[in-house]
């Protein structure tokens, strides 16, 4: 699928708006995983607004395409998108991580029904997505899952990676948010992105490294229909969009000061898109 210049402009505007929405969510209280939410925002926007069912998903449709946020610590990105899609209206009590708030510390389908799978414990989303993809083959839908690069350290991920090609799954797209950081510092997996690509290729996957903030690449690769399973290694920047947060792991999940929020918002507004 290709997008027009006009569509691209709209998507870039949406990135900016949703980054500001995230900051506003944080302004109301609580601390969220801002770095990892900013790194994958373009990927989530592409999926929810362009790829899945080729437009805004109908969450009650049995044949809807599914997105599983295996890296549950990108909750902020998911919350602002579902909010923007009109899945819920935000109430006063809905402060991030607050008591009785729908914005739980990690995405929870008990609180927001449009979330396909409650995540938070790493490594399980990819297997759940595989289960969904097995059913999607018959029911006619596609499944997308996003993993953190640090999440690749979970053994269960590799159990799934081995099983997927063996089961001839070709309606599942695995996207890796390769932002190069995990909680305690630099990601402890393979440093060379090309080597990582070769590993997936050896297991039988179509594998592509892309710029994870470039809408055209994300949309082109995600919409590609293939006869084999697909891994997209999205080269991203943790904290993308706000200069003092970019590649600064202090912003993995820290509570932002009012000053930081205002500076970040100003920068996003000044950039225009």
């Amino acid at each position, binding site marked *: 699928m290709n997008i027009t210049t006009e569509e691209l402009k709209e998507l870039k505007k949406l990135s900016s708006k949703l980054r500001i929405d995230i900051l506003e969510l944080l302004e109301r209280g609580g601390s969220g995983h801002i770095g990892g939410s900013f790194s994958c925002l373009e990927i989530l926007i592409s999926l929810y607004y362009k790829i899945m069912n080729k437009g805004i998903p109908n969450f009650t449709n049995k044949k809807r395409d599914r997105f599983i946020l295996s890296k549950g610590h990108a909750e902020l990105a998911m919350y602002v998108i579902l909010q923007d899609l009109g899945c819920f209206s935000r109430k006063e009590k809905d402060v991030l991580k607050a008591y009785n708030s729908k914005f739980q510390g990690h995405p929870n389908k008990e609180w927001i029904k449009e979330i396909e799978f409650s995540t938070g414990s790493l490594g*399980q989303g990819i297997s759940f997505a595989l289960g969904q993809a*097995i059913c999607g083959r018959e029911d006619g839908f596609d499944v997308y899952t996003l993993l953190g690069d640090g999440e690749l350290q979970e053994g269960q991920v590799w159990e799934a990676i081995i099983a997927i090609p063996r089961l001839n799954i070709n309606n599942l797209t695995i996207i890796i948010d390769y932002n190069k950081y995990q909680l305690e510092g630099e990601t402890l997996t393979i440093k060379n992105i090309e080597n990582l690509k070769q590993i997936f290729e050896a297991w039988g996957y179509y594998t592509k490294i892309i710029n994870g903030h470039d809408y055209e690449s994300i949309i082109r690769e995600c919409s590609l229909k293939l006869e084999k399973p697909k891994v997209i290694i999205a080269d991203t920047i943790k904290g993308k969009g706000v200069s003092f947060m970019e590649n600064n792991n202090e912003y993995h999940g820290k509570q932002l000061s009012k000053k930081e929020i205002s500076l970040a918002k100003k920068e996003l507004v000044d950039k225009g898109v």
Partner: protein
Amino acid sequence: MEALRDVISAELKKIGKENKNLIVIDCDMGTHTRMKKFFDTLPNQSFQMGICEQNAMSVASGIAQCGKISVISTFSSFLVGRAWEQIRHSVVYNNSNVKLIGTHAGLSDSDDGGTHQCIEDFSLMMCIPKIEVFAPAFKNETIKIMKHIIETKTPAYIRVGRSEIVETNDKFEYNIGEPIELFKGKNIALISTGEITHEVIRAKKELEKHNLNCEVIHISSLRPLNEKSIVKLLKDMKYIYTIEEHSIHGGLGSIIAQTIIGKTKCIEFKTLGMKEIFGQSGDINCLRRHYGLDYMSITNTVLEGIERRKSI
């Protein structure tokens, strides 16, 4: 004579032929769990996930969330031990319609030794909210439990052993969640769960030789469990013994103690089970004797209790 794993497999096959939404997942143990029979008959409803229980558990949840009934089966030890967090998170936390069938539970995989035996499953499952936990001892009861779990959408775990069970008249009425009073008795109650109940029935008969008339209660449903019924059956009992092929921590003994404390005339309460020890290889009867769980050990424990207190 049949083993309960055969009973479960046959029942699933029967249900699966009628209900195409029933999916069975194996983790390279189908021959032993008997799920191979289901796989051979209904290949389109079968998924071989291989030796990866954690992945298989989350896959089962993904399938269930598409409107299917996922049944996942392997040895209890690897099912609820290896994939515990996936049961908690992928299955129960997400309220997925997944049924866990654990075979070779307790000491029943006696030859394979401690790694393959499972004496922790009740505690591992009972500490997770909502998931139903069953340990049947009889054929008809097992069939009834299978029907129940397939009809309801709650996550559930069933544990069975490996051996053929003793032919017993199991025409008693069984309602999910209710204790089964196998024999009415006075003052002494023997309460058990799972296939060790067959040893308990033998112990009851042995104790009759000593003019002791024991109440025998079999509990196959640890959750749900009607606590009022338990208290009603036990309120006049002075000697209460729980027997399980499980650690003494967090299983039947703990559940009964928690349920009846302060509500009975009990002067002696003993939990018979595995005490701070792993199993080992050996013949099942030999192992049960070694760990104090065969019918003679149960008999002697009761006799010693009565002798010590000099009263009945």
